[in-house]
C-alpha cells in the first residue's frame, strides 16, 4: 500500500499539508468499534451531544440530531452525556 504513495523526494517538507480542509478526506469512521444509535422517540432535542462530540460528527437538525458515520469514531461521549438516554452504543459488526 505504501509503495503506491509518493516518496520523500516529492512530498512537501515536514509533513506539511498544503491543501486546507483535507482532513475531510480522512474518514475516521472506520476506527469505530461501537456505533451511536439515536432513538428519536426519546430525544428531547437538547443538543448536548452536538456540543460534546469531539469530532463534530453530530449533525444538528430542527428537533433532533443525526450522526455522520463517516467521521464518528464511536467514543461514546454523546451517549454518556445524553440526559434522555436516547443514544445507545451498538457494537459494530463489520
Amino acid at each position, binding site marked *: *500500500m*505504501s509503495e503506491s*504513495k*509518493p*516518496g*520523500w523526494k516529492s*512530498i*512537501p*517538507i*515536514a*509533513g*506539511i*499539508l*498544503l491543501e*486546507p480542509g*483535507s*482532513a475531510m478526506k480522512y474518514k475516521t469512521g472506520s476506527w469505530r468499534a461501537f456505533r451511536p444509535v439515536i432513538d428519536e422517540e426519546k430525544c428531547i432535542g437538547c443538543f448536548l451531544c452536538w456540543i460534546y462530540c469531539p469530532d463534530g460528527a453530530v449533525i444538528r437538525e430542527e428537533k433532533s440530531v443525526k450522526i455522520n458515520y463517516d467521521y464518528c469514531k464511536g467514543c461514546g461521549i454523546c451517549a454518556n452525556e445524553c440526559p434522555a438516554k436516547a443514544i445507545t452504543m451498538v457494537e459494530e459488526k463489520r
Partner: protein
Amino acid sequence: MSKVLGLTGDGAVAYAVKQCNVDVVAAYPITPQTLIVEEFSEYVHNGEVHTEFVCVESEHSAMSACIGASLTGARVFTATASQGLALMHEMLYIASTLRCPIVMGVVNRTLSAPINIHCDHSDMMGSRDCGWIQVFVENAQEAYDWVIQAFRIAEDPDVLLPVAVNLDGFILSHSLEGVRVLDDEEAEKFVSTRKPVLTIDPDKPITVGAICFTDFYFETKRQHVDAMDNSPKTISKVNDEFAELTGRRYGFIDTYEMEDAEAAIICLGSTAGTAMAVAKSMRAKGKKVGVIKPWVYRPFPTEQIIKAVENLKALAVLDRACSVGAPYGPLCSDVIAALYREGIKLNLFNVIYGLGGRDIRPTDIEAIFNEALEVAKTGVIKEPLKFVGVRE
C-alpha cells in the same frame, strides 16, 4: 569598523543576538545560561531591539513558543542549559522535523543527579540525536561568531534546520574575554532578515503537525536526514562569507599542528584551547603532537576528520560526557564510526574527563599526549577507555 568589547561567553551570545534582527526570543533562565536572557532582556527593556521577548514558565514552553513563532516566519532565538535542555527534549525533535530554523545557545552543564551546575557535555549529548545542527565553540569570540553565522545557516532554504551553539558552562559563559564584534550595520547586512519558505498564513492556510502514520512518517524523517546531509554546502558558504567580512575563518573542524603530528587529541569546546597550548609547549620540546577541534558536531565532519588524521599514528579522543554502558563516549563512537566507514584503522583510545565541571589541567593533557605518543610508538593500547581526573 569592528571594535573589541569585554564580554563573557554569555554576554557575547546576547550581543550577537542583539545584532541579528531577531523577532522573537522565548526563554527561561537556568544557570549558567541565565546571563544570556538576562542581558538580552535588558536590550529589550532599553528599546535597543524590536524583539518580542516571551517570558515562559518552563523550557518546554520556551521551545514550544519558539516553534510557533518560527512557523509564522519569524527569526527566533532561545538559550538553555542542562535540565532545561532535557525538559525541552521532546520539543527539540518537533522543532527540527517541522524544519524550524531556530537558533539556540546551549551553555553546557551536566545533568542531575547529583545536582551540579558546572560544565560537561551531558546535556547536548543527551539530545544529540534530536536532528539539530550542533556547533561547539572554544571561546567567547567563537560563540559570538557562530551565533551570527547560525542564523544564516539555519534559515537557508536548502537547510531549514535549527542550530544549537554550545559553549562550556562557566568556563566560557562567565569568563570575560576581549571579543571583536561587528558594527551593527555590518552584522545586520550579513544576517539580513529571514526569508521564510512555508509559513502559517491565514490567507494561505496550510496544516502543520498533522498526524502522520506508517504511510508517511518515514518519508518525512528521510527528508530531515537529507536536509542535514545537504547542510555542509550552506555551512561552508556562510563560513566563507563570514571570513570575507571578518577575516576569521571557520569550518567544520579547527586543527593545530596536524600536518606532521604523530599523536593528537580530538575534543570539543574550551578544552581544545588548553590542548593547543599544551601542544605548543610540547612541540617546543620536539614532540610531534597536534589537536583537532570539531566546530561542527552535527552534521558530523567525517571527511574533514579523515583528512586531518591522514598522517597520524595515534589519537586520543576526549569526551566530556559518558554514555554509560556503551563501549565508548559519544564523540569517540562517532570518530570510530567515521574512520571505520572509510576503512581506516587508527590506533586510538577514549578519555572521559571533566564531568560535573572537574578541571582538566595542562598536566592532565600532557599526560594524555604522552600516552598517545607511546601508542604511536608501540602500537599498543593499554586502556581503550579511561577516566582522567576522577579519584579512585
